[in-house]
Each structure stands twice: as C-alpha cells, then as structure tokens.
C-alpha cells in the first residue's frame, strides 16, 4: 500500500483548505504526491456516547450540533429514524417544510463550498461573489426558521414552526435572485480559463474506483455514480417533488464543481415547487416519550452526500445506540486516492473538492473543558487577553 517518496511532509492539524483540524502526511517525490495519509479525531466530542445518556428529544438537539453546516440534515435524519421506530404518521405539511429547509441548507452549503474552492485556486473574485450571494440564503433560512445556523426547526413528530403564505412569497423571491446569480456563475464564472486550468483533470477518480471505495454525494456523482438518497430512498416530501439528480462523467474537480452548481439550481426548483404545493394541515403530532424496542437504518442526502443514522432502541426513553456515519467519513478513502500523483499545489483544491467536514467525521472522543471552564463577557475576555500578554 505504502510507496515511499523521498520526503514525508506533515500538514496539519490545521487544515490546508478549510477551517477544521485534521492531520495529513504526504510522501512526496519532488513536487509529486506519492502517497497520502489522513489522521482524524481532533474534533471528537463524544456525541454517540452522549446520545446514549440522553432522552430522544435531548439527543435531537445534540445531533443537530454535530455539524454547523448540515445541522438540519442530522436533526432530520434522527427524527425520521425515531419516528419510524415509534410508527408515527408525520403530517405532510411538516415534511414539506423539512424539505424546504433542507434544500435551503443545501444551497447555503454549496455556495459556501464554491467560494472556498474558488479561493483555494486563487480566484478570489468568485469567492467574494459567492459568499455575498450566500447571505441571501442565510437571510431566507433565518426568515423560515428563526436561526441562521442550527435551525432547530425539527422536533420528533414534525416541525416546530409553520411557514406562512407571506414567508413563502419572500422565499420564492429570494430563490429567484439566487437562481439568477448561480446561472451567472455557471455561464461566466466557471468558464474562466484560469479556473478551468486549475480544476480540469485534477484529482481524477474513475467511476469504478469511486464505487469500490464507497464514496457518496457530489464526490460520487462527479464521477458518474448516480447515488442520491433523495431519489433512491425518498424521505420527507421528495417522493412527490419532481427533480433531476445531477451527475457528471468528468471524474475530476471540475466535475464535482459542475455537480454542485447544478444541484443549487435543482434545489431552487424543489423549493419553489414545495412552496407552491405546500399541503394544509397541522405541522406536528405528539410523540410518546418511550420508543418501542427496535432498530432503524435512516438515510438522508446531505449537501456532502449520504448521511446514515443507525438507531437501536431498547423500549426506554433513551436510545441504546446511535451510530452516525457522516458523508465526509465515507469520502476519506476516495480523497486519499485522488491526491496521489498530483502536485503539492493541487492538495488544497483536491481536499476542498470533497467538501470535507471533519466535525461530522469526528464525533466521539474529546473531553470537554481542556482548560478550566470559565464564563466571561467581552470586556473580561479583552482584559484577560491584555493581562496574559503583559505577564508573558
């Protein structure tokens, strides 16, 4: 498995592309990466173990905090799993609202990713554009759920907040705006020659290898593997909403970029359709505290790919086991493969192209409070900082 390059050079635990910690070690031969190795675990927080010690509704808020970007994904898949175990009939209106928030989240995540990817190849104009336009969707999320991140709209048995007609109208207007901007990226931004030169034929992974390494999400779809839980395993309202699964057979970073941009446009269509066809009725049903004994394999398509929660219940009000498999963990093996054979300068963009989220991939072991926990306000914090440097 391991080739030996002339030099092994370590990268991390500061991420070379995103603002999250993990450790890489690259064996290089001159400028070429001969082999890559990844070490995770720097943001493990003990969430799986923590879920076993909490009631289902408490665990819901904990899993929502696994990731700051796909927080709605984790909460929805957990609710779906628990509702299936309880045998709850969830009102249709709440399923549509979950879908709308889920797609807004996808747009937000893909625009964030697009900005980061552009930045990694030195295309900062695009980074500014895409992050500016991401603010539109952040505002829409705040309008629909009350929060910019960790939306907390889910509860076991439905959603916690209804969507009014007026809100629906504002959402549709905002989505129209995003659609225009994204079409512009597609027709102008991505066609830019210098961008093309950095992403075309970089980080190539064939369809066969992608399947063997069990990749998921845009990483798989960018290599022509049409895995998408929304279509293959419909949940929420996806069974009733028409949409296309975007794939690309380019197998490189460009392919993954095209998939994500195409998905933003599909998400816009889904949101508009869901708002126009929002069923009337209640938004939640009452859920029992105890969950009958059983097991459930719940799946969800997050912006980064397939998310799995495997929940085992034992008849009490606390779960026996909650296993979380976030998409980034599934894409660790493929990214190792993709890096081999490319230049050191390509490392950031290849890593960024799987849109890794290591707080998702890491969940379990970090002991809270590595220093004495203290609460302080801004002034106290500032004074503490000044003092610390004075006494140094």
């Amino acid at each position, binding site marked *: 498995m391991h080739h030996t390059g002339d030099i092994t050079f370590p990268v991390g635990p500061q991420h070379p592309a995103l603002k999250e910690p993990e450790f890489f070690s690259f064996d290089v031969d001159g400028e070429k990466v001969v082999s890559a190795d990844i070490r995770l675990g720097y943001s493990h927080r003990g969430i799986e173990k923590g879920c076993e010690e909490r009631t289902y509704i408490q665990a819901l808020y904990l899993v929502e905090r696994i990731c700051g970007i796909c927080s709605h994904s984790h909460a929805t898949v957990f609710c779906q799993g628990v509702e299936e175990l309880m045998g709850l009939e969830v009102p249709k209106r709440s399923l549509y609202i979950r879908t709308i928030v889920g797609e807004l989240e996808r747009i937000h995540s893909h625009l964030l990713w697009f900005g980061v990817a552009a930045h990694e190849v030195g295309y900062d104009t695009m980074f500014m554009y895409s992050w500016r336009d991401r603010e539109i969707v952040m505002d829409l999320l705040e309008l629909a759920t009350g929060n910019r991140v960790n939306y907390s709209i889910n509860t076991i048995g439905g959603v916690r907040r209804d969507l009014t007609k007026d809100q629906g109208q504002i959402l549709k207007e905002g989505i129209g705006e995003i659609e225009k901007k994204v079409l512009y990226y597609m027709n102008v931004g991505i066609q830019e020659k210098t961008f093309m030169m950095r992403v075309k034929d970089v980080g190539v992974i064939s369809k066969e290898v992608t399947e063997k*390494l069990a*990749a998921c999400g845009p990483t798989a779809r960018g290599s022509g593997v049409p895995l998408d839980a929304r279509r293959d395993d419909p949940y929420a309202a996806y069974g009733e909403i028409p949409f296309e699964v975007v794939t690309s057979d380019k197998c490189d970073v460009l392919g993954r970029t095209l998939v994500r941009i195409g998905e933003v446009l599909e998400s816009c269509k889904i949101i508009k359709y869901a708002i126009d066809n929002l069923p009337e009725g209640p938004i939640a049903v009452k859920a029992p505290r105890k969950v009958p004994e059983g097991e459930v394999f719940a799946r969800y398509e997050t912006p980064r790919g*397939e998310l799995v929660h*495997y929940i085992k219940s034992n008849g009490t009000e606390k779960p026996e086991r909650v296993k979380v498999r976030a998409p980034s963990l599934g894409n660790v093996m493929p990214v190792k493969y993709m890096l081999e054979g490319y230049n050191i300068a390509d490392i950031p963009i290849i890593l960024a192209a799987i849109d890794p989220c290591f707080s998702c991939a890491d969940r379990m072991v970090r*002991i809270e409070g590595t220093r004495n926990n203290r609460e302080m306000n801004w002034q106290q914090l500032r004074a503490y900082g000044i003092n610390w440097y004075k006494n140094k």
Partner: protein
Amino acid sequence: MNEDIQAKLGTKFPGIIAEFKSPRKARIYFRLNGGQFKDVLAYLMKDLGYSHLSTITAIDNGTAFEAVYNLFGKNTGVSMGVKIDRGDPHIETITDIVPGALVYEREIQEMMGIKVDNIPDGRRLIIPENWPQDQYPLRKDWNISMLPESFNDGLLRKWRE
C-alpha cells in the same frame, strides 16, 4: 414484504438467516446465526445488487457485541447483524470485498475494541495516540472516570476542579 429476498437467502444459506424483518419495502433487517458472514455479504453485494456499503455499526448490548453491516442498493437498505463473542471479540475484515470499508473497520476496532482480523491498516484513525491501549470508549461498561489520572497532563483532575 421482500419475501423473495428472504427466500433467496434461505435457500442459499439454509438455517443461518434469523429475525428477518422488512417493516417497509425499502428496508430489510436480519441477523446471522453462525455461518460465514462474508459469503452472505458478498452474495448480497455482488449477486443481489445491494452494492453500496453505507457503514458498519458496532453495537454493545452489555452481554454481546454485534457488527451491523449497512448496505444500500436497488432502492433498498439492508442491515445484516453479525454476533460477536464479548470474551474474545474479533471479526474478519471485509476490505477484500469493499476496500472502502477500511475506515469503518478502523473505527469499530478502536472505539468498540472489536479486533478486525487481517485488516490492511490497523493504526488508530480517531482516538489519540496517548489513549490507554485497553480502553474502548463506546463499550457500555466504559466511562470517563476509567481514564488514568495522568492522561493529558492531569486533564481529568483539572476538569473536575
């Protein structure tokens, strides 16, 4: 639902398919009673078309371990449970069938302490290098007070203060 799959598995592997459940069309759950689990897995993935490995879940119910192989294909999710003896927990690697299983196997090995036989790369992936060798945080009988006082420069002591 999915009786045809149950029948196919029953014919191919007589006597070892237990607790077959299919609460809805898109889900199948069953456990194995002995037998070669890798043959069943290869049959599910290669012949029956459940070709995507979603994850491997290790479960500790206090008296025994179980490894649940979560597969997906043909619009159906399949969960196959394999019992593991708690006294001497080990299971054969499946990386020869799906190379992508390596990260999940490394995970169950260090988090649950189920040794994976013939794993191509058994180094730690997630938990720190200085974590005690014989402690597995996802086991039911593990709790944080079992960490030695000296761990991470007396981290626990500081934390309790």
